[in-house]
């Protein structure tokens, strides 16, 4: 057939990739590493998004990660590498004669080489009811979205399949508040990866977490009319369910290949350099069948990608020789590892180690003095070592007696992790997912001058997938760079924990942690009750996460917020009543004067925030001072708190001959709406009635400046050590809009900033665009933020002075326990 392309043929060969998943994109990356200019690359993906790390769906479901964190290649990456990406537009036909692929939207694209990376499909057991609404698989981000939607309503969920994926789904749904039952056909969970003992320990742990596990459960029917209501088993048992997740396995997706006449058995048949039966067409990943084997784990996919890339860039290669695999369950707090053949019997012998107290089980299967398989539960530290010994086929007879105690014991490496990595041979595998060995990491560090974990991830892919080897990579960095290395990728809140602020906030929500002891227990705090650094942060995060529900913990607040006044250098306090928008009147001023006289208050000062400060009040006088101020209608100004401080105003259109808007009344309205809200740090506002900006709104956290037609809204200003002018968030026209944007901005800050982070550094960290996308561009999200702010205000707007002056709250704070009387 003589086919002449319409356009002049490009100088480069054209490579078309079908499948925008992990295997396809890894092959593209490997090709770009070897020969960046060899191909014009076009990628078709069925999902309407960029390429993400599919094995991170479980942490995405449980809330331990968000989508941005599991993206592998950003849109910029595709652009920078001149890759044409058609996402959400799957290829529906391959014309091998014309060498053209045709997408769903009708686009025809010519190829010289075609790479199939169509992955696999989840298996759906065709029981009655499998098409009901509420029945999903666990395969992509859309599935996770459906599961999260169901979890938001709570209620019962059934996961069919107690394998790796099913259990991860079950734990994720349970963490999201659903009542989960796992149905598993075999006699114990994860029977392909675990032996019965480890399966038993795992099921026990799941039950302890509140998940019901039913083994030997054969599904007869999924029940419901339009939406699922339950699952009936063949033995007649009925399990109620609002959501059914089918996670019974995957099947290579070879349809497109089969349709076009390429050899497909269980998967697309490929040779060692990943060529299909058509020499111009290649295949990698879960869709292939290589030497009779199909794979559903990432490590083999990445090995295939390397061989395929070698071949496509004409680099001599031994080709892909098949993979020996190991598996790990990605469930926080449950350590499970298995590798090889651990069925036992025949000429094999076993080493078994149990520690019921610690919940540890290890079983190593040997044959002819070599490791044939291993199952570890509870302590998987040595999984990588056993796996390496197994892959190398090393004779372990001499280590046999102490093998179960692990590498530290056997290798004499004295338990020091740095010595342990230093002692590893260069070909020891560090990252199982990406098949990166120690030698390549060390040479990347020394040759390219890498100093951080992220750089090593970027250059070598080590720890870029499941991340469980990140600690090993850090040790390698430390061992290679010596004293020059500082592991600072995650900065813990304090020495009580390894978690940073962001992960604690995320886990509070994801795991539904509602008290300080719950956080400290679940997140493995290293001290009994925290310290002065972490406790105030946790108290704020809990208040922000569970408004109206969490009870404020006074003992975890700094003294100022505990007694609602500012401690001074001599141990006395200062008292600042609120003056709405900086406005006051003779009655208030008289009351302030009377209080100053009555309690002998030595200093009365006008503050920068347009109110009056009474300095030098004795602690025991505070309730009485407040009672008098309350009586004149004044409430706490929160001048002491990580909270809304003042709203400074100019006189505006009410008086000023230049004023274009009513800045005083706007200031009062904003202050009435926002007072009493707790924040990551103090929060100041100002409203100016014209662009002359006499209220200095452009150095406030939220500044409002009137214009002729409306209001300019400014954010992120600061007048402290580092003076920072605000950035313009947006312009609005109505007063109602000012209030809605203000409430939404505050709520975003309350939900996302780290404790003790002012808006200025927060915005510098996340970028103004991030804030604008959430508060300005997305009206629905702005409304939702505003609503959440107003909900939290319902319980926050209670005058703490009145509670203490007349309701007896925290009376112990203001009286000594006892006095020693004079003789």
């Amino acid at each position, binding site marked *: 057939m003589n086919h002449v392309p319409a356009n002049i043929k490009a100088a480069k060969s054209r490579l078309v990739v079908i499948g925008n998943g992990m295997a396809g994109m890894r092959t593209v990356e490997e090709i770009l590493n070897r020969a960046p200019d060899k191909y014009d690359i076009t990628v078709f993906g069925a999902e309407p998004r960029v390429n993400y790390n599919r094995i991170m769906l479980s942490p995405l479901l449980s809330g331990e990660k968000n989508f941005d964190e599991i993206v592998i290649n950003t849109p910029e990456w595709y652009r920078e590498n001149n890759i044409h990406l058609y996402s959400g537009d799957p290829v529906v036909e391959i014309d091998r004669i014309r060498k053209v692929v045709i997408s769903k939207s009708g686009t025809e694209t010519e190829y010289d080489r075609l790479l199939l990376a169509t992955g696999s499909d989840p298996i759906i057991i065709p029981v009655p009811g499998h098409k009901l609404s509420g029945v999903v698989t666990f395969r992509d981000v859309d599935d996770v979205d459906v599961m999260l939607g169901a979890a938001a309503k709570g209620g019962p969920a059934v996961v069919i399949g107690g394998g790796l994926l099913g259990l991860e789904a079950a734990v994720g749904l349970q963490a999201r508040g659903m009542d989960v039952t796992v149905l598993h056909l075999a006699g114990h969970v994860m029977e392909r990866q675990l032996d019965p003992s480890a399966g038993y320990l795992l099921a026990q742990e799941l039950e302890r977490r509140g998940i019901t596990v039913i083994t030997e459960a054969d599904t007869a029917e999924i029940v419901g009319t339009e939406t699922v209501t339950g699952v009936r088993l063949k033995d007649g048992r009925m399990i109620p369910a609002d959501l059914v997740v089918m996670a019974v396995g995957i099947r290579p997706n070879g349809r497109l290949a089969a349709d076009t006449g390429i050899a497909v058995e269980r998967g697309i048949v490929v040779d060692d350099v990943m060529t299909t039966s058509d020499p111009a067409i290649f295949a990698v990943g879960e869709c292939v069948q290589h030497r009779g084997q199909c794979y559903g784990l990432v490590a083999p996919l990445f090995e295939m990608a390397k061989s395929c890339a070698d071949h496509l860039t004409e680099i001599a290669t031994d080709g892909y020789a098949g993979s020996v695999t190991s598996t790990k369950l990605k469930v926080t707090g449950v350590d499970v590892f298995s590798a090889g053949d651990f069925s036992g019997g025949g000429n094999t012998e076993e080493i078994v180690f149990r520690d019921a107290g610690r919940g540890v089980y290890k079983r190593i299967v040997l044959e002819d003095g070599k490791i044939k398989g291993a199952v570890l539960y509870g302590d998987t530290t040595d999984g990588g070592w056993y796996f390496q010994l197994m892959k190398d086929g090393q004779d372990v007879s001499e280590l046999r007696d102490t093998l179960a105690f692990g590498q530290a014991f056997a290798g004499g490496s004295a338990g020091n992790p740095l010595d342990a990595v230093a002692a590893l041979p260069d070909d020891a595998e560090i990252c199982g997912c990406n098949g990166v060995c120690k030698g390549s990491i060390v040479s990347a560090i020394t040759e390219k001058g890498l100093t951080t974990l992220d750089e090593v991830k970027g250059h070598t892919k080590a720890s870029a997938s499941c991340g469980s080897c990140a600690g090993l990579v850090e040790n390698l960095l430390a061992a290679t760079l010596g004293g020059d290395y500082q592991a600072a990728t995650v900065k813990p809140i304090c020495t009580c924990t390894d978690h940073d602020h962001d992960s604690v906030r995320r886990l509070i929500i994801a795991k539904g942690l509602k008290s300080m002891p719950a956080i400290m227990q679940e997140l493995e705090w290293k001290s009994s009750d925290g310290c002065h650094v972490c406790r105030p942060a946790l108290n704020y995060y809990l208040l922000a996460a569970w408004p109206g529900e969490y009870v404020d913990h006074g003992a975890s607040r700094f003294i100022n917020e505990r007694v609602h006044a500012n401690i001074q250098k001599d*141990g006395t306090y200062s008292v600042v009543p609120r003056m709405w928008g900086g406005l006051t009147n003779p009655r208030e001023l008289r009351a302030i004067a009377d209080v100053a006289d009555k309690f002998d208050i030595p200093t009365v000062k006008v503050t920068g925030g347009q109110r009056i400060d009474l300095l030098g009040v004795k602690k025991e006088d505070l309730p009485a001072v407040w009672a008098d101020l309350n009586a004149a209608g004044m409430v706490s100004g929160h001048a002491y708190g990580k909270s809304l401080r003042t709203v400074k105003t100019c006189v505006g259109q009410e008086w000023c001959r230049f004023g274009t808007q009513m800045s005083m009344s706007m200031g009062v309205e904003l202050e009435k709406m926002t007072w009493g809200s707790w924040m990551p740090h103090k929060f100041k506002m100002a409203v100016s009635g014209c662009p002359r900006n006499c209220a200095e709104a452009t150095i406030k956290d939220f500044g409002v400046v009137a214009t002729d037609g409306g209001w300019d809204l400014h954010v992120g200003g600061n007048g402290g050590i580092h003076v920072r002018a605000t950035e313009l968030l947006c312009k609005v026209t109505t007063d109602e809009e000012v209030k809605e944007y203000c409430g939404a901005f505050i709520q975003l800050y309350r939900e996302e900033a780290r404790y003790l982070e002012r808006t200025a550094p927060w915005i510098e960290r996340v970028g103004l665009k991030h804030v604008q996308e959430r508060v300005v561009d997305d009206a629905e999200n702005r409304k939702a933020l505003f609503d959440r702010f107003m909900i939290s205000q319902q319980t926050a707007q209670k005058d703490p002075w009145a509670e203490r002056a007349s309701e007896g709250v925290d009376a112990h704070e203001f009286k000594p326990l006892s006095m*020693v009387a004079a003789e």
Partner: protein
Amino acid sequence: MTNNLTWVEVGPAANIPQQGARTLQTQTDRIAIFRTLDDQIFALLDRCPHKQGPLAQGIVHGHFVTCPLHNMVFSLETGEAQGPDDGCAAKVECKVIDGMVRVGLTELQAGLRHAG
């Protein structure tokens, strides 16, 4: 010195909040009496050796208190400053008998003898 202490009962331990403190005003100074999360009672002079901060107003964590003025951390068991800081807060003897806190005072503190 300890032999000459005057023991005075200052009230029930339950009147001190957990992870908190109350004070005892003596004839010469003020004593901070702390109750930890594990319900142990400790006492220090209510005066940080650094800038005389009132330690009773600090955050109590483990068997430590953090001074409210400049965040120095002191051991409630020994009074010694933790971490890189130097200094020692004055330890005061105390014990709990039948739920009542008793503090050991010097003669001056107890007002049995006047200074000078």
